[in-house]
Every structure is written in C-alpha cells, then in structure tokens.
C-alpha cells in the first residue's frame, strides 16, 4: 500500500498535468479550453480576491460536513459492530440505503431544511455518514472478543475500553471512509452550490463564469475545486499513514 506523495513526486505530477492540459488545449483550440499559460497567472491573481472567498466557502462546507458525519456516524458504527443483535436488525436497512446516490434527495432536503448552508452541509454529510457507518461497523466486528476480554482483565471499564481500544481501533476506519468519500462529497457540493447561494466554487464555475462565457475565469474555479479535492485527499491520507504506522511497516 503505497500512496505516499513526496514533494518531488507532487512537483513532477503537477508538471505532467500542466503539460497534458497544454497539449489538449492546443489540439482542441477552442475558447472553452484555454491554455494553462492564460489560466495559471489569472488563478494566482484571483486567488487572494473573490475566487479565494468562493474557495473558502466550499472548503468550509465540506469540512463541516466531514465533522458532522464523523461525530454522528462513528459511534453508530461502533455500536452496530459490537452488538450483533442491533446489527442484525439494521444491516438490511443500511444495505439498501448505502448505495442510493444521496444527491437525489437534494430537492427534498431543500424543501424540508430550507435553502441555507445547513441543508447543503447536511446533504454532503449524508454521503460520508453511510460510508463511515459501514466501514467502522466492519472494523469493530473484527475486534476479537479475546482482545476485549484481555483488556477488561486489566480492569478497564467502559471508559478505558473506549479510550484504549475502540477509539484507536475505529480511527483508521473513519479516515479510510473519509478519504474514499471525499471525491463524491465534492462532486455533490459542486451540484448543490450551483443554485441558491452566492458563494462557493460550484456557483462561481457555473453561474458567474460559465453562463457568461468567461472561460479562463471558469477554469480558475475548476482548478480551485480540483485543488480542494486533492488537498483533502492527501491530508486524510497523511493522517492515515501517521496513525496506521503498524500497517505501513517497512520490512
């Protein structure tokens, strides 16, 4: 399992990405595909201004959604994983809801929760929520009864068990779930931000630039959204590596 991206690798990867982009834009040669030579300077100029605000609005929504889902889903996953009885009751329900693309609930959530940031955050949290529940539940199921018993024999009560067993056991699972679902979360954010807000990269890309044919500006938005995804992915990955030392042992 090697996912590490060192600074050199990141630099090379970015260089190749820009080159590919340059080639594509030359080949396509239409206004919808501006070259990085136009977009990159514009991006650097815009980022401290308006574009930066759109970026922050989007990042804020994703991060709040991650926080909300982690806080609610991890305990539920743990309880289901450690209680076969409850798991048997809820497993079919979760199996049905899990694969539903949650974005289809967008209109319902808007009507029920109002057109606020909260409804957007809720929708994204819903996606990550089920990922976390499922992964943490399966991880908690794997905790051997002998492990729990032997820690109990060291006189660990419920609180110490949580602190020394359940928390460290579920943290990697939570991070895996977040890493896996962060892409979907940003995709849904993009859609949710296209209407009924005035800040956010989705709004910037579709309403402020695309619909008025400002293609180079539109690309700065696309770049920002891409960066948000990449940054979150590697942030979570990095945390995973640090916490899961025992899974990334070098022989």
């Amino acid at each position, binding site marked *: 399992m090697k996912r590490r991206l060192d600074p050199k690798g990141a630099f090379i990867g970015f260089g190749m990405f820009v080159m590919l982009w340059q080639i594509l834009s030359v080949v396509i040669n239409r206004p919808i595909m501006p070259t990085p030579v136009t977009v990159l300077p514009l991006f650097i100029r815009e980022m401290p201004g308006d574009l930066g605000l759109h970026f922050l609005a989007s990042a804020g929504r994703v991060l709040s959604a991650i926080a909300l889902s982690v806080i609610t889903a991890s305990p539920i996953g743990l309880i289901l994983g450690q209680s076969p009885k409850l798991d048997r009751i809820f497993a079919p329900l979760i199996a049905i809801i899990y694969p539903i693309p949650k974005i289809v609930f967008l209109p319902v959530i808007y009507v029920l929760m109002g057109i606020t940031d909260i409804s957007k955050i809720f929708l994204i949290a819903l996606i990550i929520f089920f990922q976390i529940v499922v992964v943490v539940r399966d991880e908690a199921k794997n905790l051997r009864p*002998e492990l729990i018993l032997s820690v109990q024999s060291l006189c660990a009560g419920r609180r110490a068990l949580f602190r020394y067993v359940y928390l460290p056991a579920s943290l990697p699972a939570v991070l895996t779930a977040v890493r896996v679902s962060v892409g979907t979360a940003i995709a849904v954010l993009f859609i949710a931000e296209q209407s009924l807000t005035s800040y956010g990269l989705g709004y910037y890309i579709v309403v402020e630039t695309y619909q008025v044919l400002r293609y180079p500006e539109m690309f700065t938005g696309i770049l920002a959204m891409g960066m948000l995804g990449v940054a979150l992915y590697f942030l979570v990955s990095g945390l995973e590596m640090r916490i*899961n030392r*025992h899974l990334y042992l070098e022989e």
Partner: protein
Amino acid sequence: MVEVENLSFEYKGYPPLFEGFTLSIAQGEAWTIIGPSGCGKTTLLYLMAGLKRPGSGSIKIAGIPVLRPRPKTGLVLQDHGLLPWATVRENTLLGLKIREFYGPDGRHAPADVKIDKQDSENRVDYWLNWLGIKELENQFPSQLSRGQRQRTAIARTLVLKPDLLLMDEPFSALDAPIRIELQNAMTAFHQKPEMTSIVVTHDIEEAVFLGQKILALSKMCDKDPHIIENHEAAGSTDRTAQAFQKQCERLQKLLGKLS
C-alpha cells in the same frame, strides 16, 4: 487465596459444566488445570478472572467475592490479547496506563498503588529484559513470532505485580524449545512465594511440569474436583526421569477415567 464454593455454571442451551463444585487454592501454590476441550477449563479461569459470573455459588479471592476483574489478578490469554496498533512497549504499558487513567480507586487499580511514570517505565524495562524481548520493544505484534507475542502478553501482566496469575494455554502455540524455555522461566518466577498461579493446559507434560497440584476436569458436568498432588515432579529438571514420567502416566489414567 481462591475459594470456589458450590459453584454451578452452564451456557444457555448446553448441559451444565459445574454443579456444586468446591475447590480451595492456597496462597503461593502453583496449579494446573487440565481436561479435554469443552470441559470448562477456560470457563473456570474466566470465572476466577471475573469475566463471567457463576450461575450460583461463589468464588472468593483473598476473601472477597469476585464480581468484576480484580486489579491484582493477572490474566494471560492464548494469542490475541495484544493491541495490533501498539508496539511491544506500548502494549506492555497498557495495564499501567489504565491504572493511571482511573487512579488508585480500588476498583480498577489497587487502592494502595502509587502511580509513578518513571517507575512504570523501569518495570517495563525490567520485565522486557527478563523475558528476552527488550530489543523488540518498538515492533508491532504483526512483526513478532507467536512466542514473542506470548511473552509480550506475559510481560504486560507481570508489570502489574499480580498476586494471582491466571493463564489460558499460554504456551500451546509455541515450538517445543521455546515452550520449554518459557515454562522454565515460569517455574523460576515461582520462587517468589507470594505468587499464586493457575495455568490451563491440555498438555499432560506441561501440567505435570508446572503444577504442584493438578486439577483434572471431565467432559461431563464436574461436581467433585479431581486433584493430583504433584509437589515432587513439578519443576523437575529432567523430564525423562522416572518420577516425572510416572506422574504423567498417573494423570493420563485419571483423564482416561474422566472422559
């Protein structure tokens, strides 16, 4: 030290394992419990450890009924008791960390225990050295052999200075040379008279080597304890000696009768 009085126990839907079972283990004694699988030997150990409750009757340790795990009882389970995400050293420290977490409340840690970080670290060093796994302290359980994992589990228990040590087939997963080495280590350890130990095993030779007294359990419901006095053969340096072999035969015969 351990008083089992009129113990009855059964798992739901199965015939009872114990009925009116009474047993007394004095302080400082080394016991082994042997019997076929499913005879309830591990269950008896869990009952003494406070991880299971008797159906009726009682188990008292040092005069106090066991209702939950007792701070001064050490339990070593077969193979899987280590935290996979923690190093050997962190695993060995776990019990001390839990004591620190609760403080000396008499329930999760002995009421008279003083929690001193430096002292804890020293104790971990001492036992890791004693068990020969000091140089592995930064390894994770997945990097260790089963024998090394088992030593880690033993170290984790011994740093807590237990006065009663319960072990469930602690050496069954090990190769013969390491098994004998660890068994020798355990008898050496027993030179300290205040320690009472109870080892569950299915291996006749191990039972004779480690137990000054041997409790044999039957596959049926146990009512009266079958005990073999074994003070001479226990800890014998020569396992091929006649006296040792004789005890093994005696135990074998008894087990044959019980099953």
